[in-house]
């Protein structure tokens, strides 16, 4: 577990910064809800008249006047985009930073197999998302209590869980890509996160693009579906996890035999 602890320690500042930023933004969204509550009927009507734009963000299926509806759109976008960018950055640099920083010579000449390196880095990454979401969840609960809202905890946990899975999926995809690249990786990671986000928006616009939901992990964070069915859409969830595990495994296989430059 030495490398696992080292990775957690090395990523500590970054984790605190991202967690604080996401928690702060979500807290602001929750704190302004009481002021916006009375205007929500008009806002919901305005969104329902915006056609494809509302569909793209999943706002056509959600009641904006309800706290859970408000939360899933406003807070969901902050947690979705923020979490996805953090996941992409963490995943894409997980292995490539050792090569671009020339620390792979130090790490890989110790009596530790590359497979162990991969598993401990992967576990440390996943652990960081659990920590991030746990802190964000605590912040949300405190903020809800402060503004006097009592959200449906079952739905609330489902939404949070779907975002955690989405973050881990993106982390695994970028982790897999990280095995193939040596440096200049951050741009690729952010590009992957943005592309997956926009694929989800496109897939919401038309039924013809529904197949894109199988490609992007954002599809399992469809809050409209979660609020309506009280569950995550399992077909997207399973395919998303399978694709992520497959990409991370391909990356791991490649890295196991890769020449370290």
């Amino acid at each position, binding site marked *: 577990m*030495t490398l696992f602890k080292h990775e957690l320690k090395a990523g500590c500042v970054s984790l605190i910064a991202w967690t604080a930023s996401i928690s702060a933004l979500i807290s602001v969204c929750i704190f302004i809800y009481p002021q916006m509550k009375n205007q929500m009927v008009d806002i919901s009507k305005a969104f329902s008249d915006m056609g494809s734009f509302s569909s793209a963000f999943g706002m056509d299926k959600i009641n904006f006047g309800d706290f859970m509806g408000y939360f899933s759109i406003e807070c969901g976008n902050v947690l979705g985009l923020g979490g996805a960018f953090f996941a992409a950055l963490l995943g894409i640099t997980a292995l490539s930073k050792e090569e671009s920083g020339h620390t792979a010579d130090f*790490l890989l*000449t110790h009596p530790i197999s590359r497979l162990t390196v991969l598993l401990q880095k992967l576990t440390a990454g996943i652990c960081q998302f659990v920590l991030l979401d746990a802190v964000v969840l605590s912040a949300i609960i405190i903020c809800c209590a402060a503004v006097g809202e009592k959200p449906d905890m079952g739905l609330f946990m489902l939404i949070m869980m779907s975002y955690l899975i989405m973050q881990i999926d993106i982390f695994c995809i970028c982790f897999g890509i990280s095995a193939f690249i040596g440096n200049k990786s951050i741009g690729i990671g952010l590009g992957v996160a943005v592309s997956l986000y926009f694929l989800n928006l496109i897939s919401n616009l038309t039924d013809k693009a529904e197949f894109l939901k199988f490609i992007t992990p954002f599809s399992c964070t469809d809050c409209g579906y979660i609020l309506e069915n009280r569950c995550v859409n399992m077909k997207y969830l399973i395919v998303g996890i399978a694709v992520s595990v497959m990409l991370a495994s391909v990356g791991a296989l490649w890295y196991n035999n890769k020449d370290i430059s």
Partner: protein
Amino acid sequence: MNAVTVRNLSKYYGKSLGIKSVSFDVKEGDFFGFIGPNGAGKSTTIRILMGLISRSGGEAMLFGNDVSKNKSRLYSDIGYMPSEPLFYGNMRVGELLKLSARLRKADCDKEAKLLCERLKLDTSKRISQLSLGNRKKVSIVCAMQHNPKLYILDEPTSGLDPLMQHEFYSLLEEKNKVGATILLSSHVLIEVQKYCKNAAIIRNGSILVSDSIENLGHTEAKRVSLKCNSVFDESLYKCRSIKDFSKSGDCLSFLYKGSPNELISVLSALDVEDLSITEPDLDEVFMHYYSSDGSERKSL
């Protein structure tokens, strides 16, 4: 038993040749020098031995075990120093040494402290604040703190000041005396000649010769250096037994390969003030290999 066995080892980077059919052995307890200029293939060979790059062909074994198998068991007894050591910049030296020890599942505090004192290494400094020389010292401590059975050192003294180089070699000699095997690559011949027992010379990815330092330096030719007051006879320049002739003021230096009587006869014609006849040093052997294809060694 061989600590290192390399047999017909080859590495191609795409179509470009790294090393070709490299073979040499390093016996347990040996102090082995791996000599060659930049780009000759020293680091490629060492990186294959350390499992950082794969081989295109041949065998690479440490203590009789293939380097591609049982890596975690094999490398617990090896101390490695890369030619350009780089570490996690935000860590302090002490933290990095502890990380290295923990990755080896070893308690190295006592030995690390001793080494840091001898190398005058400040463990409270951040890695990002260190010069190349100090990073080399960190690398030395990482390679030595667990008292491995085999040291694989890639150009270990580059960047170290002469005092630290001396201290470093003292440490290596101490480790070697208690049975550790040392394989070091270098292009500083004087240190190889001074400390190593055996050496291999590599050029353009191929081993030219692998032998004891004594045999590498021992040739039929002798280096003759003399100071004389008389005007040099032209016949001296034309003598077929004399090579590599150089003159500086009253001083002459040349390689002589021939009958001792002929040399005495040639020198007797001169008013010699001072004379020394020595074995050619490793530098000359090395230069010979690098200025020709090596096949002419017998004529040196």
